[in-house]
Structures are given as structure tokens and as C-alpha cells.
């Protein structure tokens, strides 16, 4: 009995002492990385290239999406070079630059140069050929208590080169076009339902998939897109799908260096354009 009392007493004492004696954390100075330019681009063949320009910020600054506008970089010189010619971009709103040109064509290499103060970033990319759906059809299975929604997609691999594909499915919640790149920082009218990343090494010639969709009503509208993206952007999106993943992946403590094709900066100079299909599920 004395032994039991001893155990109970000492253990309760230790629990309280443990709770009360947590050592004070020690401060540590971690130097922030020098501020660099961050780009993101969208391209509309035969029409325009849009560049959004922001800068990096310290992990200690406490930035959120709410004050993202303060990161936009105005007054930069943005140029694109192809076929031996250089074209200037116009700044249409702070941090958003656009270049209209009917000569923006597939399979052509583009070099982007951005100068802001003393900073110069460059990036090269090739406008990848567009891939089109051979099949893109929603399937709505209605049951008394539930409705299952799928979208059946298929497309042919572009032969003779390595390709990486991005399939997105959106729930369209308003009249706003979710793919209007001019305002991609101000979205909110649509929500992404699912993203599929697939390399042509994973299938043989024809990609076919039945994609299950959740959180949909039978009268919703959806948009389905497929893009032929470059390898680095594919790797980036893959890494993001892991790095921002579920509780199990959070236990993986090793850092991820996200890929970029920008020299001396971050982000992506993308030159892909999607095939887009829009559906009203009420018709299925």
C-alpha cells in the first residue's frame, strides 16, 4: 500500500512539475533570403502573353492573401524575345503586364527578360503544342439518396516528344470565366474540384480516365481542361501535391525545393494553353 501511495504521489507531483517547468524557447536569428522577383505567366496563342510580377517576402513578415497586392511590382521593364525580335510589355494594372502579338505560335522558343531596379530575371520556355480532348463527357448516376458524378476524359499523346499533362476540373459558380488569366489573382467565382497530373510515360498513346467528382449537385456547371505543360512545371505541381498534402505527408519533415524555370527569381514562365470543355450537369 505504501508503495502504491508512493507511486501515485510521485507521479502526480511529476506531472505537475513537468507542466510547470517547460523551458523558455530560445530565440534564433534566421536571415531572410534577399528579395527576388516572382513571375507567373499565361499565354493565349495568336493573341497575348500576360505576366504577373510580384516579389518574395520574408517568412517573418506575416503576409497573407489579404495583402498580396502590396507585393505586386510596378514599373518593371518586361520584354519577350523570339525569332530574333524583342517586344515590350505594357503594364495594365500594377504588377500585371501584357504583350499582344499575333505571332505567338506553338513550338516556338520565347525568352522573357524582366528588369526592375537592379534586379534582372530571365526565363526561357517553348510554347507547347495544344492537346485536345478526344473524349470529355460527364456521367451522372442518380440514386434515390445520392448522385454520383464522373467525367470521362481521353486524349491522344502528342507523339515523338516527351509530354506532361495537366487535367483540371472546375465547378463553375458564376458567369465569370475561370480561365480568364487577366484576373487570376481575383478569382472566387469558381472552385477547383480535382487536378490530375500525368506523364506520357504512364500511358501508351491514349490517355483515358474516369474521374470521380465530389461536392457537386446535379444542376451544377463544370469546366474541364487539359493542358500540355512543361516538365519543370509538372514537377512543381507534383511537389506541391505532396508538400501541401495530408496529415501523413506533414510528418515528412524534409524541405522541398520547388522547381522554377526562372533564373535569378522564382515562379514560372509558362506557355501552355488548355483545351476547355464546359458542361451543364442538368443536361446529363
Amino acid at each position, binding site marked *: 500500500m505504501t508503495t502504491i501511495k508512493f507511486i501515485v504521489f510521485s507521479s502526480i507531483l511529476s*506531472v505537475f512539475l513537468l507542466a510547470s*517547468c517547460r523551458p523558455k524557447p*530560445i530565440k534564433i536569428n534566421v536571415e531572410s533570403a534577399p528579395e527576388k522577383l516572382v513571375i507567373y505567366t499565361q499565354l493565349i496563342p495568336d493573341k497575348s502573353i500576360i505576366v504577373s510580377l510580384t516579389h*518574395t517576402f520574408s517568412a*517573418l*513578415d506575416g503576409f497573407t492573401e489579404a495583402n498580396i497586392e502590396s507585393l505586386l511590382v510596378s514599373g518593371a521593364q518586361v520584354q519577350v524575345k523570339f525569332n530574333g525580335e524583342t517586344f515590350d510589355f505594357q503594364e495594365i494594372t500594377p504588377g500585371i503586364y501584357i504583350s499582344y502579338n499575333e505571332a505567338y505560335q506553338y513550338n516556338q522558343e520565347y525568352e522573357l527578360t524582366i528588369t526592375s531596379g537592379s534586379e534582372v530575371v530571365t526565363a526561357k520556355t517553348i510554347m507547347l503544342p495544344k492537346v485536345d480532348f478526344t473524349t470529355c463527357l460527364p456521367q451522372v448516376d442518380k440514386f434515390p439518396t445520392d448522385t454520383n458524378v464522373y467525367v470521362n476524359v481521353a486524349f491522344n499523346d502528342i507523339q515523338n516528344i516527351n509530354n506532361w499533362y495537366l487535367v483540371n476540373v472546375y465547378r463553375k459558380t458564376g458567369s465569370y470565366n475561370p480561365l480568364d488569366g487577366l484576373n487570376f489573382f481575383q478569382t472566387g467565382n469558381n*472552385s477547383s474540384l480535382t487536378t490530375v497530373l500525368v506523364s506520357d510515360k504512364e500511358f501508351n498513346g491514349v490517355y483515358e480516365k474516369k474521374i470521380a467528382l465530389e461536392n457537386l449537385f446535379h444542376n451544377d456547371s463544370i469546366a474541364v481542361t487539359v493542358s500540355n505543360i512543361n516538365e519543370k512545371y509538372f514537377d512543381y505541381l507534383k511537389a506541391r501535391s505532396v508538400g501541401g498534402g495530408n496529415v501523413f505527408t506533414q*510528418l515528412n519533415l524534409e524541405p522541398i525545393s*520547388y522547381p522554377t524555370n526562372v533564373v535569378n527569381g522564382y515562379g514560372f514562365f509558362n506557355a501552355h494553353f488548355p483545351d476547355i470543355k464546359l458542361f451543364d450537369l442538368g443536361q446529363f
Partner: protein
Amino acid sequence: MKQKISNTILFIFLVCFSARSQEKISISGYVRDAKSHEVVLFAKIYFPELKTGVMSNEYGFFSIEIPQKSDYEVQVTSADFPLLTDTISGLSTQTIDFSLGGESNVSEIEEVVITSKSKSDGQENISSTDISLVKISIEEAKLLPAIGGETDVLKVAQLMPGINRGSEGGTNFFVRGGDGDQNLILVDEATVYNPGHLFGFFSVFNPDVIKEMSIYKGGFPANYSGRLSSITDIRTIDGDKNKFHATGGIGMLSSRLTLEGPILKDKMSFMISGRRSYIDQVLKIVGQNIPFYFYDLNAKINYNIGPKDRLFISSYFGNDVLDVSSNEDSLSGNFGFKLGNFTQTVRWTHVFNPKLFSYLSLIHTRFKYDIEGNGFGSSLLVRSAIRDIGLKYDFQYFHSSELKFLYGVQVTNHNFKPSVINTTGEISDFLKNKEAKLITTFETNAYADVKYDITTRWKIQAGLSIPTSITANKTYFGISPRVNTTFIVSENQSFKASVSRMYQFMHRVSSSSFALPTDLWYPVSENVKPQIADQVAVSYNFYFPRLKSSLVIEGYYKYMQNLTEYKEGSQIILNDDFEQYLIQGTGWASGTEVMFRREKGRVTGWVAYTLSWTKRHFDELNGGEAFWAKYDRRHYLTTVAIVEINKRLSFSAIFELASGARFTPIIGQYFQPNAGLTDVEIIPIYSKRNAYRLSMSHRLDVNFVIKSKPKKNPRFSSEWHIGAYNVYNRATPFRIKLEPTADGKFEYTQPGLFGFIPSIGFNFKF
């Protein structure tokens, strides 16, 4: 060069031949503890007149060849016993058992004189060929402060030079710049794959059952193989053949009880020991329901079949259990896991003749974990297991006091079931059912090792090991030479050097420095090559007779190939297809270790300092640039003092000063649209891999041991342990954390795991 080698070989044979040609007799037998009749390992049997001696092996057996003569004085010494001086007849070959710590049972006794304390390990170390060897004194370890008063031999090992701890309070350790999976831990020759309880905060080794613990950091004898950086060889007690004993302890976190005694007096003994934590029961008292506990059980039977044969059967069984199903208030469903080791060793030792000793071991070991959960219409079962069955046959041939051969073979069948996942319900949408295939490999090792005293001052131990791993599609084999040499400058001074190559055919798949239940072992395959390490070490050894202290200064360089890491962004947890994520690279480590140790006297202890560097290089990581290893601790200083204040009271203290572990912080961020361009995400920018270091840590722990009055009950003795961990409550940083500041921004801080923790414990023996 060839001429020199042939001359040396010729010299060896001439010495062997000349030794045979003289009138010589063999003296062989066992060294035992007079009270318990347990064998005494590594005792020295010394003939002063001949200035020669021999050491008992890991089974207490010795054999020595000496010139025929009527009488010899012989001295038998071991660190834990007083020196025994006997006179024996040297007329004929004979078998003699020496008993230490009591009256000798040598039949030819003419005189038994206890003259002085025996030599310490530090003194013995001067003339031995062992280098980079750390011996843990269990009696000393039991006096030292520990978290919650739980004596932990692996944490004592972390106080030795060259053995860095991982996170604070953990049993994970890193030897000479190696990785955490490069340490082989053997208990009675069986591999223990997971040496930690409670996510690695407590080791699975019950201190009451350990007889001997040695850690090789380099200079590996050829009979050891399988890991690159260290071999920890733990031998458990055999059980008292003479009297029944009980030993136990009641602590704040767990209690333990060991029973030992004769089954057949002087012929057969048993030992059984159990330990269980009661953190769950304690927390229940204060209203917290965390049904987590661990337990372990050691058992051993030791049978003297005859004068030439002995049989040991030993087993270890332990589990960590979390069972939230008993939590009736839980709204989040049931969850639990169970993980643990299970080992058995059956060993038969046989003396073929006074010069040839053998031991045959049949070894089984299993490590497995089960994670189970259900709730909200989903259920999850994750299971992983590794099971080894091995056979080992070793021989020791005692040719003469100058020449000893060791040779043997080992075959181990590894069976891996890396990951079985069964899910039902919604969870199965993102965690699919998987039945991992059974992976079977065979690992073999054939070795030969020779210990030879070339002159009275120059000794050499040279060996060759040929490890092999046979997998489904590929067979790997290696040639693993080991050479240790000692040059004795004087009785108290020597220089040593060693070179060794080690192979490792298994890798631990772990994403964390903590021992997570999801850690698992994975063998070499067609794509995953064996890890290889080449190590060179040199040491200077000095013994101060007046101070009864030893000084060892050791330098090393280690080059490692085919180290394993994971590609950035790998999802390896609960993933049985992780081989695609494994990448291999190189690493190197160098350092200097200084150890000043006093083993005898009222004040004992040591000061150990390590200055080290260790780097890694993987083409796929850090932009292909070499980077510092996570536990590249530049400075590591430990000071341990044990003061015997009087016969009943002793005080001990540990002070540790260590450079922080390395980490890769987020040094910037930027916004990018998500894949669907419907939202923006914050993307972290990391520094170069492991470019930053946590702050240097220091900590003081103290402990008092108060023994019961010796005359109260001669059969019963007890002691109280009253101590404190982290006396001045300073954080030992283990990670960094972003904390908000008053101006709406953030700052990095480094929290510590454990603050001031008092402890009290009660140990008894009868």
C-alpha cells in the same frame, strides 16, 4: 613489398613452429563469479613470471599455453572484482575454473591472496588491440541521473566521445558522422531493430538484466558485420546458479522486477525480468486518458550440460501499446498501435579441446508494428514486419598466449513485409488497400580473424570478412578487411591504429529523427546498393597510475558510399512503393575524440569531447552540392562525475554541452497560383540544405543515491534515487518554430522538449 609480406608470413610460421617445439602445457577453463557462479567476461589471467597472460572470452572461457613447470603464480583480474592471486601446478595440461570475489575453488590451491584492486578498463586498454571501443559499466550507469529516474544504457552511451545523440532525450544515436540506421544493436547476438520505447525516449534495455555492454565505433573485429558505424553488443546476465535473488525498482514512469536463481544447483539457472510503464495509469489519476504504455520481458536459461558444454536460451519480448479504444469519451473513433521486438537466441558452447572453443547460435528476431483505427465509417489497418532467422557458428582457437584465431560463418534469412494497408470507408479514397509482397533475402558472412603479439610491444589483430546478400534478382558480396595494431610504448602508454571496411545490406526507411512507429527496414535490391564505409582511426592512450585515470585521444576519417536518402517531396509514410523515392549518395566524416576517465576511487567519471565534421553528397539534393549532415555537431562535450560521499550516499552529475543539430529553415516565401488557377498558394523558399544550426545547448542533471543501512537485513538491500534532469531548466532546442510577435509579424524560436524534471526511485535487491 612482396618480399616484406612473405618475410612476415615466414616469421609468423616460425614463431608458431618454435612455440610448438617446446615442452608446453595448456591451462584452460572458465572465470566465474564466486557468489553467483556466473561466468566473468573479459577477465585477465596473467602469469607474472612469464609476463604473459590471456583474457577470458565473451563466455568467460580462457585458454593459454605455458612452459611446463612445477608451480606458477597466476593473477586473475576483472574490473568489477578484487585481484585474485593463486598458485597452480604447471606440470600437465589441465582445466581450471577461477572464482572471483570469494575463495578460489581451484583444486591445487596453495595460497589465495587478495592483494589489491584489479586493473581498470583504462589500464587494460593500453595493451589491448581494441580501438574505438567503448565499454559501458552497468553499475556506473545505474548511479547516473536520467529522465524520470529511468536508467538508460543507450543514453549513457551518448555521453561517450564519438556517439552523438539525436533529439533531446531520445535513444537514437549517431556514431562518427554516420546515420541513425548504421548502428547494429545485438542482445545475446540477436538484432534489436527498434531499440526505443515511447517514440524512442526510453531504450528497450532493462538495466537490471545487462551484464556487459560494448560499443565498437571502429576497429571492428571481423566477426561483426552488417552496419557501417557501430556495433553494440549487449550480453544479459545468466542467472545465479547458487542462490535465488530478486532485483527490482519502482520509478515514476515504470517499475521492474528481475528474478534469478538455480533450477539445478550449480548446473542450471534461470533469469526472468519484466518492466512496465504506468504513464497511462498516472495520467488517469489526474483526469487525462492517454492509454499508452510499454512493457518488456527478458528471460534466460543457462545450463551446464557438462564440463565442455553449456547451453543458453534467452529471449526478449517488448511492446509499445497505444489503445484509444478504451477511451469512452472519445468522439473521434478508436485508434491504436502496437509495435515491438521479439528475439530468441539458443546458444551452445562447446570446448573441443583446451585450445578450441566454439559457440553455435540459432537466432530469431522479429520487429513489427500494427496501426489500427476506425471511426466515422472508416477503418484503417497498417502493418509492417521484419523477421530474421539466423545460424551462427564461431570458433576460437587459442594457439598460444601470443596467437589466437577466430573464425566462423553466419547465415541469416531476412523476411520483410514492408507495408500492408487495409482501409474501408472514406479513408480508402486517399489511402488505398495494399498487400505488400514478402521480400526475402539471405545474408551470409564468413570471417577469419587473428590476434597476434608480434613482440611484447607490438600487437596486431587482422581479419577478413566476406559478407554476402542474396536478393531475388541480384547477389551482392563484399570483401571487408579489418586491421588493428597496437604499439606499446611503456606500461602506461600506447599508440593504436585501425583500418576497416564495413558493408550494410539493410536501410531504415524513416522520415524523421524520431523513432516513429512507421519506420521500417528495407533490404538491398537490384536498384538499391549496399552501403559501404571505409574508416581509418588512430589513437594515443595514456594511463596515469597516480590518478588512476586514463586518457585516450583518437582521430578518425570515414568515407561512406551508397548512403540512402529520399528524393525531395517523397511520400514514404504508409507507402510500400518507396523504392522509387530512394536515392543514393556519399558521405564523409572526420573528427577527434578525447576521453579522460577515472574508473577507480571515490570520485569517478569522465570528460569526453568530440570535435567532428560530417557531410553528405547526393546528386539529386541541394542542387548537387555537398551539404552538412543533420547531426553534424561540431562540438560535443560531456562531463560525468560520480562521488562516493560515504558508504551509503553517493552523488552524480552530468553536464552536456553540444552544438545544435542542423536544419533547413524557410527563409522566404512567394505567392503562386494553384494548379487550377482558382486560388493562390504561399510557396516556401528554403535555405541550402542543413545550412543553419540550432543554438548550442547545455544541461546539468544530478542524482543522489542513498543506500539502506547495511546491517539492518543482510539479505535485503535497497537504495533511493533522488535526482533532477535539466536542473536550471534551459531549453535544448530540437526544432524551430514561428511565433507571432506584438507587431503582427513573426520570429523564429527554438523550443526544448524537457525542462526541469525531478525524479525519485526506489531499487531493491534480496
